[in-house]
Structures are given as structure tokens and as C-alpha cells.
């Protein structure tokens, strides 16, 4: 008789969950790809300031992780994504996007060149079906190791000191987008200088069985450096400051859109720098070459907005011929405490949205039940709102 293996039902708990539960005061969790993920633990504002002033620790375990190996692994990855993966040597990490045949972005993520011919691809969404299709005709193995690998993002100005205290010798030499391996209690601990906050920071990856031990050692190492567990709300605020885009927020993965024109190309997401027409064939190349010739429909903009009311779900207008014309909408918005700016990421129709353009966002806000509206001026900027020198300094400073 065939026995049917019991499958987990409800939400999965991260291997860090026992430790997180001890710290949790808010009891606010949401679902992320089958896992419970905390909105916050104590106070989301405090958590945000941990990222910018000391060290915040975010549980990355639900992040999709695929191990890609085999003789054709480089060919496979190079065809998958738009940037030239031949330039990414072992020990380096690349931010990349991958597109469908029509050159529309399916997702973005980071690709870790673990060692010669061995890669880990990380993304917010799951992509086994697409990767399996991309592997047709290639000698490559794709293993989902999402549940096997526990991961933490350790982000903030004191994170380097915390890493040193953790006993990671030589971590000071690790450059941004570099990765290196350490021994942690007899297992392999991979550390990459990557993150989603636009600040100095690291991501730690190790087998799930050692998750609690790592958490304990990390918090011990960071106790004099203001280490604090953080949830998604604080991370979200910092990622907008860093100007990073998120799937399902600033763009929809092309494989889930139904209506035409609802997906985006890399050009339309401000990721032209990731598209390399000089490399060998990659998925979406034909369509993207055509778009480059003919022009894009949409453009992603970063907006510096007057006032202090976050421009959530706002229409964006441009003045043309004395009239305001609706040209797009915001997708992410927040007040940035560290920049003291009212910032947003949005999508506008080309040719609008050139750097320096003065646009308007229509902000609705509620005061004692009554709704009010302001038309706030917004300036298109090109640089990330938050991009401190410490993010790149090697070795980083001991804050």
C-alpha cells in the first residue's frame, strides 16, 4: 500500500521562530510564501532606527533559494537573466532580473556564484516551473533548498562590528556583492555582503539545523551594538529609501498578469543597466531589442515629494498646456525619517518622468474620519534616497 506522506498544513515556521517568538511583543504576522513572517516585534519605528543607527536582524528564510549546478549551469543562468553572468566570478553575487519571451520581468533576485559552476538563485517568488522550462535542452540540476537553508539579513552601521564579534575573521575584506564562507560550529556558514536596506550589511546563510545556535551567537555578539530583530514594516521603509523595487508592489511578475500592458520590461523598471545586448542570447532579448528601438511605454520614477503626507496609492500628474494630465501612479511611498524626505516610487507613462521633472501627486489623507486631498509637487530624482558611503567602505568602519 502506498502511504501518503503528511504534508505541512497552515503556515510554516521559520527555524528561527522559537527565538523570534520569545522576542515578539506585537504578535503581528503575515504570510510569505507559506511561512509566517513578522510585521514587527516590538515597535516598528524602533526597528527601522535599528537598521539606520545600529543593527537590525531580518529573517530571510522564506526567501526562495535554488541551488543550480551541472555542466551547463553558467549557460543556463546566462540565458535566464539579462545581465552578463560570465563576468560574475566565484565568490561574487549579482543582482539580476529575468524575463519571459516578451521581455517582461518575471522577477528580480540575487545570484550567488558559490563556487565554479555552482550557483544559488534567490528571489521573493517561487519559480521552479519557469526554471524547469529554461533548463530544457541543458545539463543542469535545479534543487529547491528554500527549507533547508536558514538565512538572516544583518543590516546597519554596527553590523560589521557584530560580525567581527561573532568571530568571522577577515570579514572586513569582504566587498559589497562578495561572499565568503566560515566554519560555524562545524557547519558551513556563508556570508554575503548584500541586503535590501541600502546600508552597510550582511546576509548569513547556513543549514536550518544550526539556525537557533546562530541566532544566539549573533545576538550575543551584538548585544553592545544595539542589535534588534526587525520585521517587514521596518525593512519595507528602508528598501524604499534605498530605491529598491519589490515584486507585487512596484511591478507584477509577468507570469501572473492577465491583462495586456500590466507587466513591465527591465527598461520600464529603471533596470536598463542590467540588460546587456553584447552578451550571448538571453531570454527576452529579441523583444527587448525591439523595445529599445521603438521606446518603452512606462518609466519607473523615484519621487521627492513636498510635505510630509506619504503618497500611498496616488495618481501622478504632469502639467501640460496649463492642464494637469494623469500620467501614472505611485507604487511605494513612505516618510523617510533618515532623509527627512517624503519619498515615493512610481510608474509614469513615457516620455514623462525625466530626472528633474516637476510632477504632482494627488495625496488623499484622513483626519478624524474626513478625507482631504492635496496636490503635492514631486521632483523626479535619479539617485537612491539613502546611499551612505559606509555601505561601500571596505573595510567598513567600526561604528
Amino acid at each position, binding site marked *: 500500500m502506498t502511504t501518503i506522506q503528511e504534508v505541512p498544513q497552515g503556515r510554516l515556521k521559520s527555524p528561527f521562530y522559537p527565538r523570534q517568538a520569545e522576542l515578539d511583543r506585537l504578535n503581528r504576522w503575515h504570510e510569505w510564501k507559506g511561512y509566517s513572517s513578522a510585521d514587527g516585534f516590538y515597535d516598528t519605528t524602533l526597528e527601522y532606527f535599528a537598521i539606520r543607527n545600529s543593527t537590525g536582524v531580518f529573517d530571510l528564510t522564506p526567501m526562495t533559494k535554488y541551488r543550480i549546478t551541472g555542466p551547463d549551469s553558467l*549557460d543556463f543562468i546566462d*540565458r*535566464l537573466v539579462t545581465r552578463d553572468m560570465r563576468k560574475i566570478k566565484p565568490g561574487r553575487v549579482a543582482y539580476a532580473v529575468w524575463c*519571459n*519571451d516578451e521581455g517582461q520581468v518575471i522577477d528580480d533576485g540575487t545570484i550567488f556564484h558559490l563556487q565554479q559552476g555552482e550557483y544559488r538563485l534567490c528571489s521573493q517568488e517561487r519559480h521552479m516551473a*519557469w526554471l524547469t*522550462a*529554461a533548463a*530544457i*535542452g*541543458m545539463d543542469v540540476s535545479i534543487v529547491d533548498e528554500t527549507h533547508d537553508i536558514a538565512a538572516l539579513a544583518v543590516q546597519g552601521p554596527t553590523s560589521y562590528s557584530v560580525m567581527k564579534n561573532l568571530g568571522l575573521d577577515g570579514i572586513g575584506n569582504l566587498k559589497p556583492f562578495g561572499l565568503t564562507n566560515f566554519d560555524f560550529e562545524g557547519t558551513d556558514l556563508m556570508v554575503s555582503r548584500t541586503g535590501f536596506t541600502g546600508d552597510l550589511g550582511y546576509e548569513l546563510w547556513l543549514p536550518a539545523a544550526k539556525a537557533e545556535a546562530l541566532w544566539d551567537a549573533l545576538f550575543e555578539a551584538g548585544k553592545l551594538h544595539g542589535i534588534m530583530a526587525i520585521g517587514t514594516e521596518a525593512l519595507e521603509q528602508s528598501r524604499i529609501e534605498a530605491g529598491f523595487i519589490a515584486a507585487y508592489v512596484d511591478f507584477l511578475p509577468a507570469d501572473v498578469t492577465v491583462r*495586456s500592458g500590466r507587466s513591465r520590461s527591465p527598461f520600464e523598471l529603471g533596470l536598463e543597466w542590467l540588460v546587456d545586448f553584447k552578451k*550571448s*542570447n538571453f*531570454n*527576452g*532579448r*529579441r523583444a527587448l*531589442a525591439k523595445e529599445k528601438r521603438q521606446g518603452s511605454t512606462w518609466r519607473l520614477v523615484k519621487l521627492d515629494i513636498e510635505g510630509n503626507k506619504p503618497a500611498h496609492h496616488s495618481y501622478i500628474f504632469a502639467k501640460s498646456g496649463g492642464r494637469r494630465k494623469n500620467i501614472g501612479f505611485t507604487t511605494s511611498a513612505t516618510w523617510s525619517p533618515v532623509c527627512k524626505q517624503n519619498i515615493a516610487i512610481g510608474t509614469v507613462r513615457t516620455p514623462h518622468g525625466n530626472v528633474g521633472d516637476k510632477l504632482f501627486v494627488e495625496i488623499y489623507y484622513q483626519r478624524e474620519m474626513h478625507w482631504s486631498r492635496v496636490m503635492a509637487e514631486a521632483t523626479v530624482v535619479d539617485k537612491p534616497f539613502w546611499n551612505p558611503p559606509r555601505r561601500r567602505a571596505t573595510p567598513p568602519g567600526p561604528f
Partner: protein
Amino acid sequence: MNDRYDAIVVGAGHNGLVCASLLAKAGRKVLVLEAKDQVGGAAITRTFADGYSVSACAHLLYQLQPQVRKDLGLKFDVSSDQMGTIALSPDGNHVRYNGNEVSGTSDEDAASYKDFYRRMTRFADLLQTYLNKIPPRLAKDASLSDLLTLAQLGLDVRRLGKVEMQEFLRLIGINIFDELVERFESGLLKGALSLDAVLGTHLGPRSPNTILTYLYRLAGSHGAISAPAGGMSAVSEALAHSARDNGATIRTAMPVKRIIIENGRAAGVETENGELFSSWLVVSNADPKTTIMRLVSARNVETGFTRRVQNIRMRGNAAKVHLAMDGLPHIKGIEKREYGERFVVAPDENYVERAFNAAKYGETSTKPVFEITFPSFRDSSLAPTGKHVMSAIVQYAPYELREGWSDSTRQAFLDLAIDTLGEYMPDLKQRISAAEMLTPADIEKEFLITGGHWHHGELSLDQFLFTRPVGGAAQYAMPLDGLYLCGAGAHPGGGVSGAAGRNAARAILKREQAA
């Protein structure tokens, strides 16, 4: 690279030759590279036993498009024309049909057959118009001519008249079994027509869209069957002559190793012996899977496209039997003069469906169906004087045989086939001096067709017209600049029709004009 050509055609199958000839006729410098020693692909005559030759894969001509003959001024001799069909019964009470005439059935069946034939040929004529057109694009970037073709299709269906249009729309997607049992009582007639609908497919008479496959068979000559003198090579040689006359170069024994892709476009081909030929236009007569997965490689095309190509259903199910005989076998109730006809073994519609049942589960039919000809009867060039050859298609022999195809599984099916034929031809075994069977695995190997499916992809509604071979590549142009498909895998499909080759040439010339 050495020689530069305006176009390189990979494979000298009949469609490749049609395409090459038309391109050369339009003034292009064309090179045709054929892997085998002889041109024709699956439309060839070859020796299978000392002194005995036979059309090795396709053996009857019923779909060669009049447009192809006309465009190329094609001339070849036929040994048999207007061949009738005889549905065999062991007791000698056979059913014979040719055109709209049927005998050996009740008068009701005969009358009903006339009506059936009239309607089917009318629909086949409608279909035939579109077999010879470049299928329109349905995408948002469809051109005006795409929209006009589409509108014309709608109009043509409407112009059948209300009743006939309803019949057309009712029938086009359904199975032939239901239609046959509603119309006829004769098992032999229903069995034979079932076989006509499913020959060469992975379909049984109860499978959807077997009316479509039946219409496909009738499109072109209303089912009139002929056999070229000297076998199928006669057609291929005539096509090769036409191509050469128009200025094309044909080189045989030159298997292509890969299609060279440079900067996202076809740039030429490399042969197995390392020779390079450059051209900005490469036209593949190979099947879509071979073309994309092997000659181009997945690395050079898009993932979604690769997935669609990978998923093309093309598992052959028909085996070919060739027998060398020291005389014609005796068949009860058949006169000597009738041996030039086409015989079928398909006693009734359920027999055919049961034969297909086995194939669903990866097994060969225990009671197979046959299409049989004795080509040497009217063509003495195929066998020594007084001797004869039999060429038969036997179904079902699934490509993905559960046990796997080997010498022993092939031999077992050949023995079964001969035993089954023995029920109709008692002295057959004594007459056989040599026998050969080509399973789909052998057809794949010998004719370089993935899955051994002679249509280069199942002929079904989801792989038809706008979606043949796959959506987004149905106008012969592959999603790589300069790469085209001209074989049976492209619209409209297989059979020695030349339609795919002709349409491809027209699509190429039209695109060049537009560029």
C-alpha cells in the same frame, strides 16, 4: 566560411525541395543540404531486399497539391491512378469504394455514402484553400493581410450556407466514429473510413478531431489515390529536377550539424564534416524539435518557445511493412486485376478503436489495422519478373513502446502482422522471401523525424493552423531572424502534399518584400 548563399535549405525532403525550387525560381541562390545519399526524405524508393524496392515510408499519393504541381510544372509518371479501396473481409464479401461509389453494402449505405462524400469533399475544398495559405496571425501585431485572411475564412465558412455551416462547425472538432455509426450499418465501410481518418496519427476513431484528419486526407484530390511509377522517389526526383532547373544546388550525404546563430539571427550552417556555409536565410525541412532543440539549441532561443516546442505531440504510431514475395498471395474474392487497388484491414469501427486502445498504454495492437498495396503489380521496376512486393502501413505501433523497441519486439510485431494478414491471404507466408518492418523508432532513425511521426507533429486542432507547430511561430518564421521552417511540422502538416514547402517559400518572399 566558404560559400555564401541567399538561402540554405536543411534537408531535401519533398517540402524542402518545393521550397528550394520556388526560392531559386524567384532568383535566389539556393543550397540544399541533405543528410542522406538520396533526396526525398520520407518520400523515397529504396531497395529492401535483393532486387526488390519499395516506397520506404510514404507509399501513396493523394494530397500533392495542384498548386504545387502548377507552380513547379511538375511532371512524373504514375503507375496507378484513381486507385479504389477494398475493405477486406475474410469471407470474401469485401466492400469496395472509389470516389462517391461504394459496393458490397446495402443500398441505404451506398446512398448515404454519396451524401457523406459530397459533404466531406465540400468541406475538404474549404480546408484545402487554407492549407495553401500562410495561416493568419492572431497576435496584436497581426497585419492587414492576416486580418483579411481571417475574415475570408469566416466568410467562406458562412458562405457554405446556414445548414452546411452548422454541419461544418458541428463536425470539425468531433470524432469520426460518432458520425460513421449515425450514417452507416456496414462494419467494413465504417472500419475502412475510420482507418482513413486515423492513418499515421496517434488517434483512434473515437479521438477528437478525427473528422478534421479525414478532411485533411481528402483535401487536394478528394481522396483519389495514385502511385508514382518507380515509387515515391519519382516525385522527389521530379522536385529535385525542378529545383536544379531553377538554379538550386543540391548536395546529398551532407548532414547538417548545427544552424549557426550570430547575434540572434541565423547566419549559416555547419555540416557534420565541418564545412561551413553562410547565408542570412536558413530554411529547415527538419521537424520542429530537431530544428530547435538539436540544430539551433535551446541556448539560442527563448524559454517559453523551447517549452512549447518540447511539448509538441509527435509520437508516431504507424509501422511500415515491406514484403518481398515470389508471387501475389491469394485473397478470397479478389480478382487478379484488382491487385492494383488499395486494401485495408479494418473489419469495423470498434476493431480500429480497440487496436488503438493498446497504443494508449504503450503496447502494440494485438489485432492491428492495415493499409496494403502491391506496387509491383503495376510497376515491374520494383521487383524481379514474376515476383512482387507488398508495402503496408500497420497500426498501432507506439513510438514509446513500454518494452522499448528492439530487434525482438520488432520481430514479434512483424510476426503478428504477417499472421494477421494470413487470415486474409492464406498462402502469404509461403510466398514471402524477405520481410522488413520499420517501427516508429526505425522511421525516426532512418528519416530523421523525431518520434517517427510522419506529420512532424500530431494533426490535432491544438496543433493546427495558427498553432502549428506552436503559437507565435505559425507563419514559417521561427523567433530567430532568418530562420524558417518548411516541413510537415509547419502548417498545414504531413503527407506528400508540398503545401508546407510552398507556403514557406511564399512567406519568405513576402517578408523579404516587406523588409
